[in-house]
């Protein structure tokens, strides 16, 4: 057993950390306050190869491993969780399914620009009536002539309106239940495809979340991703990898909350000494540090399972569950360590607190993660 990062992973960590600290961290608070999508940062991350990190080189990616990918998402999210999720969605939820289930022409046409960071991707599964119960898809795709006509609404879609390429799930044959769901690749500008409400959120305010609206949206037959009726399977398999991304994002938020707490505890003086010298603060920080490290182990382990072709559904769910709940706990504690200052917008810990909450909700709530884990361990 070897816990050390490889040379390659260390170099990637150093590079992404350097980039995140110099280019993202200084503007993270403004992005949050203005609710501004970090377009220029995403462009630079694309040039560095971070938008398609694990995609093989022949498809425009960088060919890195999943462990490196978790490190990158962690470091980016440590600076800005909104940027972290935009990157994670592109890698895990847009590039991955096209690579895993797409035809060669689909990979060339859609994957290559996504992996190069020239285009941005999104994933449309959730609907107003199909959240945790993702099988309840109301969006329908009807085969007509040499293509499909899609009708329906997707909501809470990360990157929506900013993204160019969308993986969209729709019911083709309701009588078949989940086996009637198919996956499609849609593009911004497809006739009948528009965007609805842009959500006003508690956290990750620099990430854009919007509705996808399909009104008699006509797409050619070659947009079907994978086989007809395999959509639900594609969605679940894609989300396994997505959870590793969200777990890494949560880990980054937790690490940032810990970093700031340590810094504040050393600077802030009460009772004639830095509060870091007080037992209560030491206990809080010791617990935070331990939980962050435990989360990191689970995240890296899930990534390692994926890299070594082991089953990773349960490890990914465990990593996502534990890291997201750790992010929430550690961010809450970080505010406590900061006292009243932590409640103010002058310090970033209130942002971490608001950003942490989403990690317990999207790409499967904590309840769904527990369900996935239970189904895997109770056999």
């Amino acid at each position, binding site marked *: 057993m070897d816990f050390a990062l490889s040379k390659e992973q260390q170099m990637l960590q150093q590079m992404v950390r350097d980039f995140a600290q110099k280019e993202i961290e200084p503007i993270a608070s403004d992005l949050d306050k203005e609710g501004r999508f970090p377009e220029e940062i995403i462009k630079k991350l694309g040039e560095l190869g971070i938008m398609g990190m694990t995609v093989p080189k022949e498809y425009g990616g*960088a060919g890195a491993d999943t462990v490196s990918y978790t490190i990158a998402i962690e470091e980016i999210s440590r600076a800005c969780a909104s940027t972290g999720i935009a990157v994670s969605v592109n890698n895990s939820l847009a590039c991955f399914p096209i690579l895993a289930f797409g035809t060669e022409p689909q990979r060339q046409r859609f994957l290559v620009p996504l992996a190069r960071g020239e285009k941005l991707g999104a994933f449309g599964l959730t609907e107003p009536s199909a959240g945790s119960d993702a099988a309840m898809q109301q969006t329908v795709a009807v085969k007509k002539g040499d293509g499909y006509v899609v009708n329906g609404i997707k909501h809470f879609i990360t990157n929506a309106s900013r993204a160019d390429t969308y993986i969209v799930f729709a019911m083709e044959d309701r009588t078949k239940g989940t086996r009637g769901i198919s996956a499609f690749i849609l593009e911004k500008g497809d006739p009948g495809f528009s965007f609805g409400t842009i959500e006003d959120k508690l956290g990750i305010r620099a990430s854009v979340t919007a509705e996808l609206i399909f009104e008699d949206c006509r797409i050619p037959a070659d947009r079907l991703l994978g086989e007809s009726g395999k959509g639900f399977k594609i969605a679940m398999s894609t989300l396994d990898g997505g959870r590793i991304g969200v777990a890494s994002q949560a880990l980054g938020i937790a690490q940032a909350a810990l970093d700031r707490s340590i810094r504040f505890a050393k600077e802030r003086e009460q009772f004639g000494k830095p509060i870091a010298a007080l037992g209560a603060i030491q206990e809080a920080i010791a617990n935070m540090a331990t939980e962050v490290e435990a989360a990191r182990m689970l995240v890296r382990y899930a990534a390692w399972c994926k890299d070594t072709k082991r089953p990773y559904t349960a490890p990914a769910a465990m990593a996502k569950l534990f890291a997201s709940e750790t992010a929430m706990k550690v961010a809450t504690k970080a505010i406590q360590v900061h006292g009243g200052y932590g409640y103010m917008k002058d310090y970033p810990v209130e942002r971490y607190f608001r950003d942490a909450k989403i990690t317990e909700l999207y790409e499967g709530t904590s309840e769904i993660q527990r369900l996935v884990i239970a189904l895997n361990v109770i056999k």
Partner: protein
Amino acid sequence: MNIVVCIKQVPDTTDVKIDPKTGTLIREGVPSIINPDDRHALEEGLRLKERFGGRVVVLSMGPPQAMDALMEAKAMGADQCYLISDRAFAGADTLATSYSLMKSVQAVGAWDIVICGRQAIDGDTAQIGPQMAEALGVPHVSYCIEIAVDEDGKGVTAKRELEDGYEVIKTKLPALFTVIKDINKPRYPSVRGIVSVCRNCDVQTWTAKDIAASPKMIGLNGSPTQVARTFAPEPKGQGVVLKGEPEAVVKELVKRLREKNVVRVR
């Protein structure tokens, strides 16, 4: 255009501590980085290549761990990197180092331009670049803030920063330039670059023999400089804070500044 860039691996701090007993740098616990000015030199080399084509070769003289700096340079886009490493180089002063680097540049083959950082943060001599140029027998322009290569790629108009202004110097190639940090913003190594350099391990090591260096000119043998003593300068004492009514304080301040000849008031 064939470009050679020289870089040095240095401890990542400008607050270098010296072991009072041995007089040497304390390197433990201090991560190593590419010397900041050298990173700008590399960026300038990469930009010239992007404009004129050709290749960028990066050289670094140092111990085996300096390989890390060269791997990073490769990940940033250098075409070839060579680590100049041999126990025979140990104890080299700037003269022996610049000789060794000059021999390395010659070993690279045909070249048009050599770019170095102004100076390294661990030694701060700023001697290597100019000394190398002398050894190579080519002109050099130091402290460059701009290196404008003519369209035909044969000459350069370089702008160098001095304490009280700028100098614009025209020179023919081949030539050597040392650059300062304001010349550009260095790129980050790319993921693809990192993956490629780590999986291909294609940074070569050159020994004194590989660069045909004369044993008399390298290492301690080639170093006329002898370090008598290294020491950390005494920390400056606390400054004096004048307190009181502004008028009285200003009067007192002016008096003291006059006493020290900092200002003259007629």
